[in-house]
Structure formats: structure tokens, C-alpha cells
């Protein structure tokens, strides 16, 4: 697999008159790792959901390698090459860890034994192989986060959307995940867009960062640029002040 | 259209409204239970039938009018509902729907067949003088029993409204119905609350049974029909909404009565099910339910 280029062009979404996302545009070049950051409720997950086909944007368009994917159903977006994780993890609770990932693998490998072998391989990479026969509901939260990543990867995406997969992980576990993603990106060229609050991970991974606040893009740049950006500092300092 | 037809149509509508009040009270019980516990009471019609039998027995063996035995029945139902929830249903809250369904189905089978063993399969009714009386208002004639039953149902609904808006436990139940987690956080004893709620729901349907026996005789085979009817009413009104249950009762009462007039009587529930299908598809949260996410 190789990465795909993601283009967001002026996308917007309102819920019952409430503007969640307004006129957001940015590109993620093929093979890049970019991050989407911003305070809670800034609209990051809404943007993800528009890319992944859960919501149809009210305005603008989402393109993957030049092909419009906004408005497609989530399964067709997956088919186009987008894998995603959920911020609130959604394992198939009653199924084993291996079966969870196998469902993802079946998308491009219709034969069950193929899919199962491929899934086992991904579990090995993510350090979940020993737990493959456990029921997914018996996993700890960090393992569930890993399972989310494994299941998304099993669909062999060209673009991976990671929604706060570092949250709840210990610093050493974060480092392991960061290394895994870097290595994956270098080896396969997979494009990755991540929503993340763990700045340590963002700074280590992202070549470019997009900052949103109140549904609008307020800044974009390299980690170094973002760290100096006044508007970003205002937003984060504003958030840090006692309410 | 002749004046005669219009008159009988108006008659049918008022008759439907009167019966609909009792339906509404019955459905209110189902709605309260679902709203708070997210448990669908598949034994609701069976509970209704047991209420009807108790009122019939009071009349037959103790010569007490159903209107007078109603408070006693409501209290018995409250206690039984409270105990049933505590002893049997409680562990099933939050379990998969099919397990709850099977549990309440087993309870329903027990209730209806115990009734059958005790009272037999024949239809049992009460013979009261008021069944032959009627009130006249201009050209309209109202059956006295229906008027009494409807008025009593209105009074009970009023009392429930006071209970839910004025008492601490009533407000807590409403809070729990609105936001289960919120109630937990506020530190209410949710387990007791659930038992209390099931008791209140049972008391509603028991009272509705006591009223219904004055209108029609009871057989065990009515149970499944009432369960379905209660479902139709609460879905149409909005599952979990108390106003919706009452309004749904009126709507279904009227639609049954009008369909009974215009179509063959045996087709009347087809109209109810037709309404149910339309509501499910077009407005699944019900006419009075809060709109979905």
C-alpha cells in the first residue's frame, strides 16, 4: 500500500442551526503525517466524521487523490481507502481480538483464512498477538486503543484517521505507539492524519499541524511555527485559564 | 352525508375519547417503566387482565363496585410491582433486549395462566345498574360507565401529574427518565427508584384494569391484545413520554371507534397497526417524544 493525498476544501457542517465546523480547508500530502489539534469541542471529530462519511458536509468537498469522497457512505469511504478509529473506542465486544481485526481484513481479502492470517500479522505488529483469543470486551483501555488502530489498518487504507489514540496511554506506551506509526509510515508511505491532545506525540510525529477553534481553522504550520503562533497560544492559554 | 351519519360519527368519536382515556392510563404505566428503566414490559396486557380479574372478583364475591376496589387494586399492584422489580427484574436492567423480553414473556405466561386456572376461560363481566344508564347532552348519548371510567382515569392522571411534579420521588423518577446517568450522579438510590417506578407503572395498569372491567368483560385471551394495544399507544405517543401516552390513548381510542363505524369492526385494529407503522417510519420518537439526536 501507499499513501493518498487528502484535500479538504471549505467544508462546513451545522447541527440544528449550530455551526460545528465552518469553511475549513487544508491538504495532507501523500505519505505525510499531519495533526489536527484544538480545544475540546472545536470540531475536530466532526471534521473526521465528514472525511469518513458519517456526516455529509453542508458545504465544500473532501477529495482523496483527487477523487471526491464527501457524501459517500462510510463503507464506501473505507473502500476508497480511508481507515479510521473512534475517539470513544468501538470494539466488537462479543468477538475475540483476532475476529475484530479479521472483520477489517475481510474488506480486501474476502476469504476468511486469508483475512485471519493478515489480521494475525497486524496484531503481531501492534503487540496484541498474545491476546488474540481474548474477548475484545476484556481488554484494558490502552489495548482497546491499539485494537482500534489494528482494525483500521486491516482494511489496508491509504489514509489513516486516528482520533486520540494516545489518550489514556502511559508515556512509555505513547512512545511505543509513536515509533510504530513512524515506522509504519516510512515502510508503507501511508498518509496519517491524527487528532491528538498529547503534544509529545504530535510534536514527534506531525510534519504539519492544523489548529481549529470554534469550528474554524485558526492556524497551520510546522510544529515549530505552531509553537510560536500567537492565535494558537491565545486559544490554549485561554483554555488554561480557570473558567 | 346525512345528519344521521354525522351524529353517529360524533358519537363514535366521543365514545373513542372516553375509552381512550382508560387506554391512556394503561399505556402510561408502560411508558413510565420504559422511560426510567429502558425495559419494555412485555407483560403489560397480562397485568391489565389481572387487574380486571381482581376487580371482577371484588364485585362477584365481595359485592364491591370496581370503582371502589380500584384504590385497593392500585395499592396491591404497586406492592406487587415493587416486589417483582426488586426480586426478579432488577438484574436484567441494562442486559440485552432479548433477555429482558424472555424474562417478561415468562412472567406474562405465568400471569395469564394463573388467571386462567383461577377464573377459567369464560368471559367474566360485572353487572352494574350504571351500565344501563346514560347521559344525554342535546342529541348526544353517553354511556354512564364510560363517562365514569374516563373521568376516573382523568383524575388518576391528574394525581400522577401532581406526583411527578410535586413530590421528591416523583421528580427523581422524571429526572431518571430524562437522564439515567444524571440521576446516578446526583446520588439518588437508583435501585429503589426503579422498584418504585415499576410499582407506579403497575398501579397505573391495575387501575386501568379496574376501570376497563366496567366497560367490557374479561377473558385471559385479551391479555396479548392489550399488550399490543399498549405498545401501539406508547409508540404513537412517544415511548417514555407521559403526555404522549395519554394523547396516544385518545388517538387510538378514537381511531378504533371511528374505524369500527366506517369499516367492519374486525378491521378496526388494522387502522391502529397502520398508524403504528406510519409513526415508526416517519416519526419513530412518537408524536410527543423528544426528537432524536
Amino acid at each position: 500500500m501507499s499513501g493518498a493525498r487528502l484535500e479538504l476544501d471549505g467544508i462546513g457542517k451545522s447541527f440544528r442551526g449550530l455551526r460545528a465546523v465552518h469553511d475549513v480547508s487544508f491538504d495532507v500530502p501523500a505519505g505525510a503525517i499531519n495533526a489536527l489539534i484544538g480545544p475540546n469541542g472545536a470540531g475536530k471529530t466532526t471534521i473526521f466524521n465528514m472525511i469518513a462519511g458519517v456526516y455529509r458536509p453542508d458545504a465544500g468537498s473532501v477529495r482523496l487523490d483527487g477523487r471526491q469522497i464527501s457524501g459517500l457512505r462510510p463503507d464506501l469511504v473505507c473502500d476508497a481507502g480511508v481507515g479510521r478509529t473512534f475517539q470513544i473506542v468501538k470494539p466488537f465486544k462479543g468477538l475475540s481480538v483476532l475476529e475484530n481485526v479479521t472483520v477489517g481484513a475481510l474488506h480486501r481479502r474476502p476469504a476468511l483464512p486469508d483475512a485471519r492470517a493478515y489480521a494475525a500479522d497486524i496484531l503481531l505488529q501492534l503487540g496484541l498477538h498474545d491476546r488474540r483469543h481474548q474477548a475484545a470486551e476484556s481488554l484494558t483501555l490502552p489495548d482497546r486503543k491499539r485494537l482500534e488502530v489494528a482494525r483500521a489498518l486491516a482494511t489496508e487504507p491509504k489514509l489513516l484517521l486516528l482520533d486520540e489514540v494516545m489518550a489514556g496511554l502511559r508515556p512509555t506506551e505513547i512512545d511505543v505507539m509513536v515509533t510504530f506509526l513512524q515506522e509504519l509510515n516510512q515502510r508503507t508511505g501511508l498518509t496519517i492524519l491524527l487528532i491528538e491532545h498529547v503534544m509529545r506525540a504530535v510534536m514527534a510525529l506531525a510534519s504539519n499541524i492544523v489548529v481549529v477553534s470554534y469550528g474554524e481553522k485558526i492556524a497551520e504550520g510546522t510544529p515549530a511555527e505552531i509553537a510560536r503562533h500567537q492565535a494558537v497560544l491565545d486559544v490554549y492559554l485561554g483554555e488554561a485559564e480557570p473558567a | 352525508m346525512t345528519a344521521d351519519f354525522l351524529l353517529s360519527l360524533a358519537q363514535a368519536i366521543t365514545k373513542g375519547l372516553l375509552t381512550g382515556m382508560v387506554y391512556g392510563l394503561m399505556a402510561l404505566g408502560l411508558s413510565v417503566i420504559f422511560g426510567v428503566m429502558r425495559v419494555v414490559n412485555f407483560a403489560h396486557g397480562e397485568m391489565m387482565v389481572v387487574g380486571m380479574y381482581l376487580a371482577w372478583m371484588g364485585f362477584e364475591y365481595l359485592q364491591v363496585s370496581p370503582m371502589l376496589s380500584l384504590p385497593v387494586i392500585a395499592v396491591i399492584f404497586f406492592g406487587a410491582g415493587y416486589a417483582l422489580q426488586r426480586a426478579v427484574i432488577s438484574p436484567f436492567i441494562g442486559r440485552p433486549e432479548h433477555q429482558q423480553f424472555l424474562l417478561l414473556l415468562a412472567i406474562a405466561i405465568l400471569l395469564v395462566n394463573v388467571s386462567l386456572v383461577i377464573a377459567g376461560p369464560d368471559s367474566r363481566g360485572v353487572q352494574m345498574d350504571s351500565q344501563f344508564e346514560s347521559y344525554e347532552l342535546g342529541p348526544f348519548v353517553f354511556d354512564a360507565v364510560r363517562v365514569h371510567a374516563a373521568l376516573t382515569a382523568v383524575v388518576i392522571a391528574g394525581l400522577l401529574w401532581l406526583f411527578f411534579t410535586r413530590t421528591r420521588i416523583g421528580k427523581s423518577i422524571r429526572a431518571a427518565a430524562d437522564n439515567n446517568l444524571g440521576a446516578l450522579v446526583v446520588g439518588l438510590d437508583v435501585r429503589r427508584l426503579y422498584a418504585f417506578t415499576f410499582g407506579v407503572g403497575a398501579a397505573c395498569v391495575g387501575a386501568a384494569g379496574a376501570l376497563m372491567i366496567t366497560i367490557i368483560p374479561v377473558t385471559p385471551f385479551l391479555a396479548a391484545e392489550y399488550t399490543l394495544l399498549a405498545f401501539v399507544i406508547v409508540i404513537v405517543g412517544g415511548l417514555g413520554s407521559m403526555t404522549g401516552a395519554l394523547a396516544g390513548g385518545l388517538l387510538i381510542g378514537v381511531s378504533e371507534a371511528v374505524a369500527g363505524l366506517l369499516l367492519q369492526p374486525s378491521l378496526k385494529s388494522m387502522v391502529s397497526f397502520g398508524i403504528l407503522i406510519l409513526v415508526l417510519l416517519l416519526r419513530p420518537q412518537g408524536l410527543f417524544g423528544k426528537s432524536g439526536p
Partner: protein
Amino acid sequence: MTLLARLTGGVPARSLWGLGLLLVLLLAAPALLGKYGLSVLILVLYFAFVGQAWNIMMGFAGQLSLGHALYAGVGGYIAAGLFFHYGIGPWAGVFVAVAAAVAAGSIVGYLGFRFSLAGVYFALLTIAFSEFTRIAFDHWGWAGGSGGLFLKVDATSDILNLRGGPLLFYYVILALAAGTFILCRLLLESRLGRYWLAIREDPEAAQAVGVPVLRCKMIAIMISAALTALAGVWNAFYYNNLFPETAFAMGRSIEFTLAPIIGGLGTLFGPIVGAVVLTGLGEIFTDLSEVFHISGLKQIFYGLALLVIVMYRPAGVWPWIAERFGFGEKRR
């Protein structure tokens, strides 16, 4: 991979031997059992078959239908009506019957799934359609209305028209139940089956990994309706009569759900074990209540048994047996 390998892959040898022995016993059963025993076994197989059909929808795909009587009723009525009015035998009529039931299932499914009804709401939709159809059949002259439709009871065996004694019906229902068992195993060990399980567990997550949720649910209800219609046809010709009051009753729909729930939802053996347990209990309770001469007593025993099972084995009897006796599949 061959079909056979897919069927038997991962199943412990003792389970395969057990299954083989069971099949031999079932084939020989008519010679071993008396008239009464055979009639009970026929009931077991009937409920096992129709339970498997329902299990595909609820146990595999997670869609709660409490209106499956609709498909059995439509199927039975159409095959019986074609035979009654035009002399078209059930082996031909069954195709029309199944097609009609699949069409009915598609309508219920499309409306329910399209409008994203789930859980209790979907269940109520299925009940509503079944009840609606019941009342319609009550007034449909071709189907005999509320008076019912009766097939001539013929002592002579006529396999071409599915006329004959219990032996004929026994082997037909055995073939249906065994065939469906194999079908269920193949489905479960396929991409479609795994997609169903994913939808059952979490439809949103399933869709995110590329599962076409609506299509998979539609296939589930269509297969389930088709099999249930077969049960309806068999039932109509076995009992030789049909009434809307019973054919489309909610009680009938509930009957279909009991064996899989009691036996173990979503498992292959659940519906079969459940059918054995329920029919066995039913027969015992019938005998018991005849001793006391009280109508309703049998149902009280039955209700108590259900209560005990759901309180102490909420996940069903089969997963517990499989665990205790090591019949489960090997982990791969």
C-alpha cells in the same frame, strides 16, 4: 478451500463423531421410536429448523424480529392456496411461497433498516406488519378468511404433492433442519457471516471498516424469511389447516424465538438444543397437567421453566453445555 474443509475446519474430532452419530440416530429414529416418539421428534425438528431461521437474523445479524409468523404464514397460505384452488403441488408452490415471503421480508427490512429502526422499535415494526397481515387474511376470501383454509386429508401417500403420513413429514423436516444447520455453518464461516456478527456488535464500527450494513441486513432478513416460509409450507401440509388467528399470531412469532434464545443466541447448536429442551419440557408438562385435569397448568409450568432458565442461564443452555463437556471449537 473446499466446502467440506470450510464445514469441518476447527471442529474437534469428538464433535464431528458426535454429529455423525446423531445423524445416523435421526435417520434410524422412525424404526426405533413409536408413533408418539416420532411425533415429538417431528416437533423438535420443526422448532429447531424455524429457530435456526430466526437465529440468522437475531443471533447472527442482531436484528430482533418478533413478527416471523408473517413469513411462515404467507409461505404456508400461498403453497396451501395454490394446491387447494389450482391443484399445484407444494414442490412447485414452494417457490412462489418463498418468493412471496422474501418479498414481505424485503419490505419490512427495507423500511425498518432504511429508517434506522433498531432494537425494540424494529421489533414492534415486525409485530405491526404481522398483525396487519393477519387482519388482512381474516378478510381475504381466496385464503378462506377467518374461517380458515383446509387441505383434504388423504391417507394415500403421494410424495409428489407432499401428502402422506408422519414418516414422510419426518424425513422432510429432518432434511430441512440438517440442511439449514450446514447452511448456517457455511454462512458463519464466510465473509457475510462475519459481517453480520460485526453489525450485531456495533453497526457504526462495522460500517467504518467497509461493511455494507444495509445490504448485509437485507440479505439476513431475506434468507431468514425464505427459510421461515419453508417451515410455514411444511407446517401447512403437516397439519392440513390454516387460520389467520394462529398462523400470523404474535404467539406464533414468539414460539419461533424461544428455542434459539433458550438454547443460546447466535450459536449453531443453540436453536437445536433449545428445541429439545422446550419440546421435552412441553411434553412432560402436558402429561403432568393431565394428571391434575387443570387447563392452564401446563403453561404455568412452562412459564416457570422459562423464568428459571433465563434467570440462571441468560446466555442459553448450549454455551454452558459446550463449556462443560468441551464441545466448543478449537481456537485458531
